């Protein structure tokens, strides 16, 4: 059919340009598909292999000698909890404290330095942190220990918590601070009871992000916590950890250990996700009016 009102030449889009446009769109969609494929593959395979492998023995027993079928990772799960508890006890207060400093006192050169340093620390490879924890704790104690593992993970938690705490505190309206000062409340009281209180849920979210990040860390534990085939609750003894055990079992030649590595991986993911979800849920119910 002949076109009665021809499009002005300026607005005409040549077939070539149109083709390029469509190609670009197709390419973008293809990248999304390619990127999502491994995600689906990893999660799907993890759940598929993991669910078939988790059983009561896995959750309640300690490892059998190499090559024997059976046993479990109960000691590694407990060890991970122990190491993460140490890391949180050390890292969370420090990180929040440094974050408070940056938000409430840190509008100066020194604050900028701390900000830069914590960004730098965030990028330090975890294995290097492991070396440092080895140097300052293991060499002093003369053997591998849960404490060393906890120190390594704490060092990794601090910069993340510092920066998110600062970000959250800066969201608290200045009017609240001024209102408190106006009532004659001292600065430290204002910071703790008004500012920090208001930002609680945001800060806890930041803490959980840091926690989830270190909970799956393996590299810094290799030569700090080291791993252990038996139960251990002493802070100054080598301790098993779930990620370590997954690593050891994955590169072993035994089929049953491969099965347990998958089970361990699924348990690890479930632990991380449920810890984060539980805290988020508790926070949402507790302080609904908080920031973020």
């Amino acid at each position: 059919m002949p076109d009665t009102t021809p499009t002005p030449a300026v607005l005409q889009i040549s077939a070539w340009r149109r083709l390029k446009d469509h190609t670009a769109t197709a390419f973008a969609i293809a990248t999304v598909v390619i990127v999502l494929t491994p995600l689906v593959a990893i999660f799907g395979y993890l759940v598929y292999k993991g669910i078939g492998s988790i059983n009561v023995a896995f959750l309640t027993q300690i490892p059998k000698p190499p090559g024997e079928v059976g046993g479990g990772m109960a000691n590694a799960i407990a060890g991970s909890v122990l190491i993460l508890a140490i890391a949180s006890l050390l890292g969370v207060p420090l990180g929040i404290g440094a974050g408070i400093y940056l938000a409430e006192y840190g509008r100066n050169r020194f604050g900028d330095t701390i900000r830069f340093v914590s960004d730098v620390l965030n990028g330090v490879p975890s294995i290097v942190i492991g070396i440092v924890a080895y140097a300052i704790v293991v060499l002093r104690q003369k053997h591998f220990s849960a404490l060393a593992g906890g120190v390594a993970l704490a060092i990794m938690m601090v910069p993340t918590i510092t920066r998110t705490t600062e970000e959250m505190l800066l969201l608290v309206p200045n009017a609240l601070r001024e209102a408190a000062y106006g009532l004659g409340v001292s600065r430290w009281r204002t910071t703790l009871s008004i500012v920090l209180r208001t930002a609680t849920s945001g800060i806890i979210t930041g803490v959980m992000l840091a926690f989830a990040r270190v909970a799956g860390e393996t590299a810094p534990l290799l030569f700090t916590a080291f791993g252990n085939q038996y139960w251990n609750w002493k802070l100054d003894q080598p301790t098993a950890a779930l990620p370590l055990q997954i690593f050891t079992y994955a590169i072993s030649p035994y089929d049953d250990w491969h099965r347990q590595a998958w089970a361990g991986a699924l348990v690890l993911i479930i632990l991380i996700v449920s810890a984060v979800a539980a805290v988020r849920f508790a926070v949402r119910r507790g302080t609904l009016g908080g920031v973020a």
Partner: protein
Amino acid sequence: MANQALPQPRLKGPQPVAKQEVKKHLNPLLKSSDGVFADRVFGWLILGCALVVLAILGLIVWQLVSRSQPSWHAFGWKFFGAQDWDPVNDQYGALPFIYGTLVSSLLALIIAVPLAVGVAVFTTEMCPKWLRGPLSFTTELLAAIPSVIYGLWAIFVLVPILRSYVQPFLAKSLGWTGLFSGPPYGIGMLAAGIILAIMIIPIISSIAREVLSVVPQHQREAALALGATRWEMIRMAVLRNARAGIVGGVILGLGRALGETMAVTMVIGNRPEIAKSLFAPGYTMASVLANEFSEAAGDLYLSALIEIGLALFLVTIIVNALARFMVWSVTRGQPARARA
């Protein structure tokens, strides 16, 4: 308010107890109003926390530098150029590890950058609004998976696929380049590069998305008004504006890839050799630390490993500082995630 007219504030009822209740709640706040001392203590305490952050960095540098001294004195600069890694004869050269780290990371970037930028462009410019949230959430989920689980998946899924399908195909079609020759083990540099790519895609694409979303809307509208197609608009108005930020994101991904340990250690083959073929096993700086550190007997051996750690530390710091600066130069003045 009606309450203002009442003689007494009604807090929990008209009982005289109420007054005490109010006092009990107010007192701890007001009692400290003259707490200059407490204020000072709190200030010092908080400053202490901030100083600890500084101290941690100092501690890392000091420990790495002082403990790598024996190796530095024994080998000097030759340490980074020598190829032999021989704990038995106490001869250490880090070149194979440096080579492995660089090649696996570059390979990862070559694979990851087009994909990550494509995903970012799709999420900010093309995708329907309802899909935007779930899509960015899913990509970020990839970042939450622990490294050791990536490695586990790579050993049991990726490597067999590479061995039986991808590598024979590459050898047949591109074998003449020399990059894809030799026996297809599955395990090797190629597997390490691919798993690293999967791991850094979320980082690059989330930063690219942030940077793309701060490109002013009127730039897009101007390009479209001049008759540009959507792709031309993206290329000329969006990507050009966001270039520096995207490069920053890529460098940040590089920093992550350089230091990544577990997944790489599990699939790279751990052999300190420099081979041209990507099928051949290799070794990286991070994985030699992971494998040999806890068994390093002898001071020079340990010191050589710590020197590798120091080199890794310095390289990642430089790379990260560069990346932060470039991302910052684009998003400066914009609230982060303003339009996410």
